[in-house]
């Protein structure tokens, strides 16, 4: 374990904290509908768009209207993306002449990109035409991220508004998220990536002569533009199968650092935006601190674990001082790989710069735990924010009772309806993960896909369902996921993990917005101090642990204890 590794981790956390505030202030301005420094350019565009689409931008929706708009929008997007993949051989911009994508994979992919999961049951460079990548996948990278941001904003309004029936206008929030937030940052980010050597071309592939003297086709394409939003929107779907481990996606340690920061930037900013919206920025910082606490613990464990190698590796003659370099890129090393793995799973991004499958048992369990914790450690854009607030509602409920008052969060009473909806939302993804894993683990179709026998194979299955239901999209690797069984099972998990959380979350927002806000007193428990931060982190860990301990026991824990015993 090297001191540079720890410094990298701490510097990274510090940089996220630095970005959070300006991002939060900007997001607040954008979604409060105030003027920003981009307004002179973008406001006319925004107005023109509303006129064209007929969106009544000055009328708000209640939660049902908001949810219905979101569901309809996602449905249409899924169908359009599916159609594009089925018809790509008839459409232009297909230099490699790929045929239509297999229907089950196309369906899985369409669901995957619309739900901001970006689980990839295919190899991008050998399956998708440039048109599919650009007009289909990249467009969804923007829209699914914007939808997540929209739900987060609506959720924050639930706390900020009092005695109101409406929580905002979905179409306006979508438009603003895309136009003011995702597009400008992505453009700058893509330019930076191009400057660092990431390709951006419509050509199909390059011919090169390798050291062996043989010719080789090297796939290129419009990578930089997809790469930027893949990170910023916590999508994670790479242009190449190797994802951010590929030098064309992530050429050097600097692009690696910027990519990791961009994964967290909007998620962290949204939390600060929430604090601003409810009129007490420290409320946002408290939530961010709880996220940071869990993140540091997980990342520390993962990094430490990757520096330890198993007795089997020692026997095979690996130098123990190198740590576990299997499946990692030399240009990133242990710490940047462990950190990337923690970031991408904590934030529901799913981009990878190393093979999680090759991590040590404990090192690989940390990304898995990050996902199983509910994707709330910063989390996916928007999803992480409303996800952690669902936990906050449960934490507040128990804490509120313990101080002898009807529990209230930011002056909003937490009553049976909110508890019911929060429990429902929190249950959705464990339901999908456990049932999916149980079916896969106990049937031949499920077991057919695994690469390694024993507990490690079980971890591969568990990780895949966790990744799907958590809308993460990263793969543990090892699992052959393009079978009929897995494409459909994962699609169901992805849908459950997305919409069975969003709909109750919006219902909570609607219910809270309608309530009056009680002023705080010393009798109300402060939710901006260390006690709340600790409690929230504790509740997240305990709920996750209680739900998944049996599954983890027969997977990574069994593997880890067996390694120690040997």
């Amino acid at each position: 374990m090297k001191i540079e590794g720890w410094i990298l981790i701490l510097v990274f956390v510090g940089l996220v904290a630095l970005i959070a505030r300006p991002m939060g202030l900007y997001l607040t301005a954008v979604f409060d509908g105030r003027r920003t420094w981009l307004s002179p350019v973008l406001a006319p565009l925004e107005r023109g768009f509303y006129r064209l689409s007929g969106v009544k931008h000055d009328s708000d929706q209640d939660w049902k209207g908001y949810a219905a708009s979101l569901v309809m929008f996602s449905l249409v997007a899924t169908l359009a993306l599916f159609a594009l993949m089925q018809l790509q051989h008839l459409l232009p911009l297909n230099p490699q002449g790929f045929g239509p994508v297999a229907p089950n994979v196309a369906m899985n992919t369409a669901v995957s990109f619309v739900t901001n999961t970006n689980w990839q049951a295919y190899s991008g460079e050998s399956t998708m035409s440039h048109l599919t990548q650009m007009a289909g996948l990249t467009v969804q990278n923007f829209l699914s991220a914007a939808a997540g941001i929209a739900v987060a904003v609506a959720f924050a309004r639930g706390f900020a508004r009092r005695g109101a029936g409406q929580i905002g206008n979905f179409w306006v929030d979508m438009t603003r998220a895309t136009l003011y937030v995702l597009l400008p940052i992505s453009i700058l980010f893509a330019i930076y990536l191009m400057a660092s050597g990431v390709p951006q071309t419509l050509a199909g592939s390059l011919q090169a002569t390798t050291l062996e003297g043989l010719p080789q086709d090297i796939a290129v394409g419009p990578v930089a533009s997809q790469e930027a939003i893949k990170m910023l929107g916590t999508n994670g779907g790479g242009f190449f199968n190797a994802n951010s481990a590929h030098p064309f996606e992530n050429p050097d340690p600097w692009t690696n650092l910027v990519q990791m920061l961009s994964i967290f930037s909007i998620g962290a900013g949204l939390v600060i935006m929430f604090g601003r919206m409810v009129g007490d920025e420290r409320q946002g910082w408290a939530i961010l601190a709880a996220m940071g606490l869990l993140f540091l613990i997980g990342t520390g464990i993962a990094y430490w674990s990757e520096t330890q190698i198993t007795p089997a590796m020692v026997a095979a003659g690996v130098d123990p001082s190198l740590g576990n370099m299997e499946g990692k890129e030399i240009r990133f090393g242990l710490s940047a790989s462990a950190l990337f793995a923690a970031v991408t799973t904590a934030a529901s991004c799913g981009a990878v710069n190393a093979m999680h499958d090759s991590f040590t048992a404990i090192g690989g369990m940390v990304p898995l735990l990050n996902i199983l914790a509910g994707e709330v450690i910063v989390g996916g854009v928007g999803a992480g924010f409303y996800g952690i607030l669902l936990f906050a509602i449960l934490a507040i409920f128990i804490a509120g009772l313990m101080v002898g008052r009807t529990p209230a969060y930011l002056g909003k009473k937490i009553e049976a309806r909110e508890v019911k909806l929060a429990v429902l939302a929190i249950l959705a993804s464990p339901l999908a993960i456990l049932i999916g894993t149980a079916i896969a683990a106990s049937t031949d179709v499920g077991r057919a896909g695994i690469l390694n026998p024993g507990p490690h194979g079980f971890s591969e299955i568990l990780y895949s369902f966790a990744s799907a239901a958590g809308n993460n999209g990263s793969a543990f690797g090892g699992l052959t996921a393009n079978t009929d069984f897995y494409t459909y099972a994962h699609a169901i998990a992805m849908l459950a993990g997305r919409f069975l959380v969003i709909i109750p979350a919006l219902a909570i927002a609607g219910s809270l917005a309608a309530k009056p806000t009680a002023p705080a007193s010393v009798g109300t428990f402060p939710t901006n101090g260390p006690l709340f931060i600790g409690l929230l982190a504790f509740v997240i860990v305990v709920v996750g642990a209680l739900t998944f301990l049996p599954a983890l026991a027969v997977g990574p824990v069994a593997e880890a204890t067996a390694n120690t015993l040997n």
Partner: protein
Amino acid sequence: MSNKPISLFDPAIMRQAAIAAFAKMNPLQLWRNPVMFATELAALYVLVLFVRDLLTGGEGAAFAGQIAFWLALTVWFATFAEGVAEGRGKAQAASLRRARSELTARRIVDGQAQAPVAASDLAVGELVEVVAGELIPADGEVVEGVATVDESAITGESAPVIREAGGDRSAVTAGTRVLSDRIAVKVTATQGDTFLDRMIALVEGASRRKTPNEIALGVLLAGLSLIFVMAVATIPAFAAYSGGAVSAVALASLFIALIPTTIGGLLSAIGIAGMDRLVRFNVLATSGRAVEAAGDVDVLLLDKTGTITLGDRQAVAFIPAPGVDERELADAAQLASLSDETPEGRSIVVLAKERFAMRGRDMTNARFMPFSAQTRMSGVDADGATIRKGAVDAVVAHVRSRPDAVEVSPEVRKAADKVGREGGTPLAVARNGRVLGIVHLKDVVKGGVKERFAELRRMGIRTVMITGDNPLTAAAIAAEAGVDDFLAEAKPEDKLALIRKEQAAGRMVAMCGDGTNDAPALAQADVGVAMQTGTPAAREAGNMVDLDSDPTKLIEVVSIGKQLLMTRGSLTTFSIANDVAKYFAIIPALFVALYPSLTGIDVMGLSSGPGDNSAILSAIIFNALVIPALIPLALRGVKWRAAPAGKLLARNLAIYGVGGLIAPFIGIKLIDLVVSGVGLA
């Protein structure tokens, strides 16, 4: 009722509860408590497995039998807890029933009292006559006469109270006894609907409905149980992946160990005990909802008189006019007050006695002038001196009218104004033509109120004093009593407006009142405590009735409400925190045959080799025993003190959260030592 406190663990109640607990195990009753219902189903399921193993000679029979026994015992402990909580109420209800049983009534028809009929025949609006020695047959309002009434059957207070027509003391309660005189009562509630009936239903817990927070907590517990259904139901599939199987008994055990049986088993006992605590404070709540609301109160409206101040003004100082000795003034004031039986008069006598040791004197030739509203003075003519005391203006006018008048010093005026500014009442004293000085009468703030209000402030509750006094006087008393705010020159409609204003700002308001004109405000307040001595209208409007008619009791009511919620929250936290240890006990035992390496996470070092079920049995025994161990806590409530919410939470998290994590590790280990030592599994 409170005159004979029944112990928490009265043997008779325990015996009854133990028997009643079996009846409560009936699934048709138990399904209302999903967690316990699930436990009972699991017990039955394991029982079937036990019988099967017994008949087929399966080797797990002994283990299954023990698990079935402990699961059933878990359910019984829970129903027993409820029975104990109800027991005390049942005993109280029985004595109340006796008071109600043989009530007869004599109707008044055309001004004539009729022959006695059963009280159950009465209708609302009818008039009945009650004379000394008779029991009042129905709740009603005195419309004629005055009587002393013994209300000890309801309040436990043996001193009789006065009930009279008109005014704020007109309500009478069925089952109380008239001790003197005769009253005519207009019936306001028929049998089955009277205060006594409501009280019986309340203390018995028959009318107990789940409170909003209880419902919300129930949802959370059901949700948790659902998570555990999934976590446990998927285990066979995980085991099948490794080509093995786990025992059904072990799975059922794991499930029961994980679902929140501790809080699920004690939840209703906590609620009943909370109501019971109120009843022991002689406060009746019409619903559990009101008790919960009491815990949420942000603002307390308190009437000045009787709540904050003693209600009578007391002399606190003699302020002599220039050139007058204080002793001379005290002497005159005492003389003038000797025959004055008002509290003010008595306090002047006492003050003079305390300050200058003046006492009994010969007053044979004295002629006393009683106070009258016209003269606004009282006094005495003795030994050729005319002594008067009274309102400053009146005394000054009296002095000026005399031939021997001496010019009143402006100092006296100043002193009088100063007393007025400080919230007191100045009383001038004159001998013959000379004003001797001022007696400072003061509204005396009750002892200890200031500390109570400071306590409330620490809890985040604001106190507002309501008074008819002018703002100056009100401000002085408010400052002295330490209330946060006051409403001076208050009319009943001002009270209502204030409550509405606070509620509009999102605050919860509590108040108490007794008069008919308090009824709208009582109804509007989130917690309205009506005095038992009050009018029927007030009693109807409030959601609590204080049998002792002690307005300061609001503070107790608030703390009982808080304690109720805290007990629920703390035991929930404890219950959930326990699960961590139970997982660590059961998971290695469950999978040990498939993954022997998992004994590595058996941090307790339980005896859980293949075929050794000691760890599972120990976890289940711990799970069962923790319920009776916590019954006293559930019934008494967790310790509560006035402190900011943050401090309370830190304390309760440390005790019930961290304690809940650690306790089962120790408990299960100890039980395991016994279980494996004795060789039970």
